[in-house]
């Protein structure tokens, strides 16, 4: 069986960081290969080398042997970072670089629009075609990105964490498309931190660890623990079942009380958070849970309703005011509002508490700051070569950890974490859960706003929103089936087809 992709002894370094060292792998025609590894293992780097977006320092790659038409359209890639043109409409982004043209050589916009509408319709987003992507929700953007790649009918399909930020339904639809692609004999490389997906989508797996390919195997011979061991290089600490043992309901009076909060997509929501409890907030895309989180964190003024913290009203719409009042949070999209690319990891992790490091002359003491940072870096297990490394140089997952670290830097009374584990590898995920649990144990109130069931596992109760209203509240013990039903407003589903999330039940 002929190879579609041959990677031979490829190495790539970024400054001091060895992203890839002598990686070799071959993928056969029609094979679907999973590429997994911890944050910073080198997955995205390998992908961008495969697409020719960046050049290897040494070694060679060959995608589709000569003879069969290679080139941009034959290889499709969904990158980890958005590759959309913000000001352009979804339709143009999908058609980009291969526009339908009239005989005069001019672009036929109606046709562009029609094709895009057709493709988006398969995702039930037909009406997005004419909208500039900068006005879309993160999930909608991801869908546009996937549509663009699929629309090119590639014969090699590279997917770098395509389901990060997708909700359950969208992920299922993506798997459907991948299935059909495989049926057409398309070669696939699939990067994900959701190991159960890997079993659903792929035949074989290659594990990267610290830039080296440590294992390549048929998935039929592998189990999730095997993969985790290969990734981490040891038996992974499991996301403790301990966490999930039902706890006595915290008796202390609520620290955060939201009543009648109304804002775009949020109508009259009440919510109470007690010290020492961890609450999940979830819903389908557009259900309003994200908007509610923005209100609670001062990122968005409320049209009606009040939010009090320790009985004192929060200054909604004034982020600084909320932080000072004791709210800590992570913004929804780390790329647009998470971190300042040019600033060091230390500065990004302490951006909200800089005055603390002021010395006698009210100047920031780098020593104090870096000391504080290295504590955070330890807690959150951030992989950077030092406090001074610009955050833009970190891998996706590590950037996420920097943002998480900042949210607790000011030791807030209430912690609002939006998609805290998006794009974070299994072991990091576990360490994040452990950290969250530790914070909770110190009596902090934690609100996890997420679409990832794994995140909900660590919560004492889960508040589910539908249509901007709280539709259900589930206490432990709850199952994903119950959540899945609740987010749809109580509609029934076939549990067996839902993602099973083995990696957490280990």
């Amino acid at each position, binding site marked *: 069986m002929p190879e579609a992709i041959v990677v031979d002894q490829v190495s790539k370094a970024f400054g001091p960081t060895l992203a890839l060292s002598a990686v070799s792998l071959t993928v056969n025609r029609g094979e679907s290969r999973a590429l997994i590894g911890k944050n910073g293992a080198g997955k995205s780097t390998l992908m961008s080398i495969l697409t020719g977006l960046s050049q290897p320092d040494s070694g060679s790659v060959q995608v589709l042997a000569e003879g069969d038409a290679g080139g941009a359209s034959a290889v499709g890639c969904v990158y980890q970072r958005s*590759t959309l043109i913000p000001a*352009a409409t979804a339709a143009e982004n999908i058609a980009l670089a291969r526009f339908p043209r009239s005989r005069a050589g001019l672009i036929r916009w109606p046709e562009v629009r029609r094709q895009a509408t057709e493709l988006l319709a398969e995702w039930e987003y037909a009406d*997005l075609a*004419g*909208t500039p992507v900068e006005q879309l929700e993160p999930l909608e953007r991801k869908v546009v990105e996937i549509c663009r790649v699929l629309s090119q009918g590639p014969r090699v399909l590279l997917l770098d964490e395509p389901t990060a930020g997708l909700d359950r*339904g969208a992920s*299922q639809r993506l798997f459907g498309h991948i299935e059909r692609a495989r049926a057409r004999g398309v070669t696939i490389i699939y990067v994900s931190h959701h190991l159960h997906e890997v079993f659903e989508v792929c035949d074989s797996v290659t594990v990267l660890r610290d830039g080296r390919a440590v294992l390549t195997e048929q998935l039929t011979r592998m189990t999730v623990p095997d993969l985790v061991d290969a990734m981490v290089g040891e038996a992974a600490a499991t996301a403790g079942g301990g966490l999930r043992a039902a706890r006595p309901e915290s008796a202390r009076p609520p620290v955060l009380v939201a009543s009648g909060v109304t804002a775009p997509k949020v109508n009259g929501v009440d919510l109470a958070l007690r010290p020492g409890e961890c609450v999940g907030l979830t819903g*389908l895309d557009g259900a309003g849970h994200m908007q509610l989180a923005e209100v609670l964190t001062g990122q968005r003024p409320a049209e009606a309703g009040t939010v009090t913290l320790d009985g004192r009203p929060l200054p909604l719409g004034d982020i600084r005011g909320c932080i000072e009042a004791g709210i800590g949070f992570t913004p929804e999209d780390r790329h647009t509002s998470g971190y300042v690319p040019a600033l060091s990891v230390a500065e990004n992790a302490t951006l909200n508490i800089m005055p603390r490091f002021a010395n006698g002359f009210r100047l920031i003491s780098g020593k104090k700051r870096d000391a504080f940072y290295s504590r955070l870096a330890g807690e959150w297990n951030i992989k950077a070569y030092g406090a001074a490394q610009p955050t833009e140089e970190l891998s996706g997952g590590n950037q996420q950890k920097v943002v998480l670290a900042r949210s607790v830097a000011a030791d807030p009374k209430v912690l609002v974490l939006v998609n805290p584990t998006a794009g974070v590898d299994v072991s990091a995920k576990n360490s994040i859960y452990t950290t969250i649990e530790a914070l909770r144990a110190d009596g902090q109130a934690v609100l996890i706003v997420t679409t990832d069931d794994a995140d909900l596992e660590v919560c004492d109760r889960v508040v589910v929103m539908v249509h901007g209203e709280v539709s259900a509240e589930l206490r432990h013990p709850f199952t994903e089936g119950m959540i899945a039903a609740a987010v749809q*407003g109580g509609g029934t*589903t076939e549990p067996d087809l839902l993602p099973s999330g083995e990696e957490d039940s280990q």
Partner: protein
Amino acid sequence: MSAVSPRKLSEPVAAAAPSHAARRARRSVDPVVLTLLPIIVIAVIVGAVVNPVFLTTTNIIDNIITTSAVLGVLVIAESLILIGGYFDLSLEATVGFAPMLLAVLVSSAADAGLGLPFWAGLLITIPAVLLIGLANGLMIAKMKLNAFIVTLAMLILLQGLTIGLSGGQTFAMLPKAMTYLGDGVILGLPVQAWIFVLAFAAAYVFMKFTPTGRSIYAMGGNLEAARAAGIRTTRLTIGVVVAGSLLAALAGLMLTGRIASVTANQGSGMIFTVFAAAVIGGISLNGGRGNLIGAGLGVILLGIIQNILTLSNVPSFWINAAYGAIILAALLIGWVSTQRFPGGRAAA
């Protein structure tokens, strides 16, 4: 997928639908145009009140359109480059350099020229202009040097060369061919009026309806994404910058036509006005946004304001202040109207 109940899927769509509809409505008419038209209308009314002469066809054709043509062509050049995500200050110097080089080459020895035939002059001037664009393009796109500083240095260099070449002289004894762009008339309209209108129409179609045009937008909107989509960004950048230089040279010849001579400081100081027109016209300095119709309206607006000020009796010492105040006023009017079309800011 069977796992997906129809109801579930309809929800997000339903939830989002209205806003999408609203967005679409907004986009059907370009918000910048929506912002500029009322301002222009106001300006025209003011003009008519200030001086009845304002509304005469001669004033509109000869004094507003025609005298805006040079600026217009420059604005097209700069807009292409801005939309592509870069910018070029040296255009204003090319406006002086290209005609001066040509003049020195083709003027008779008596007029301190080399007395070459016109075509020979062009054969030297055009490659020279291409070279300027190429140099800028390579430094910006290949060497990744900062566009601002590269083109600023080029600006100083070219202005210097222009003075050096001419010995500071003004060249006035020019061959007819060189001044045709100034006094030519087609179907009763001055050549420059034609160029103004046709150039903007062509540029608009190019940027809106050709893959190359869209690639320029893509490149300016998100360079990495454009590369990921297989656009040859280096080549494209160089191409755009070279095209800009050629257009600037054309603008220079048009200017020479208008004043039937080439002065050593020709074009100097124009670049600010060029940026002003482009930005007022909704071209984003950050690349990837804006369209040529808007830019054209920006040029017209500035032309009208200048014209009104000349026709008005504003005491000369306060005319510049008035000019600045009017532009600010225009911005504020624009802001007020974008408050009703929030989409406006995105495109502006």
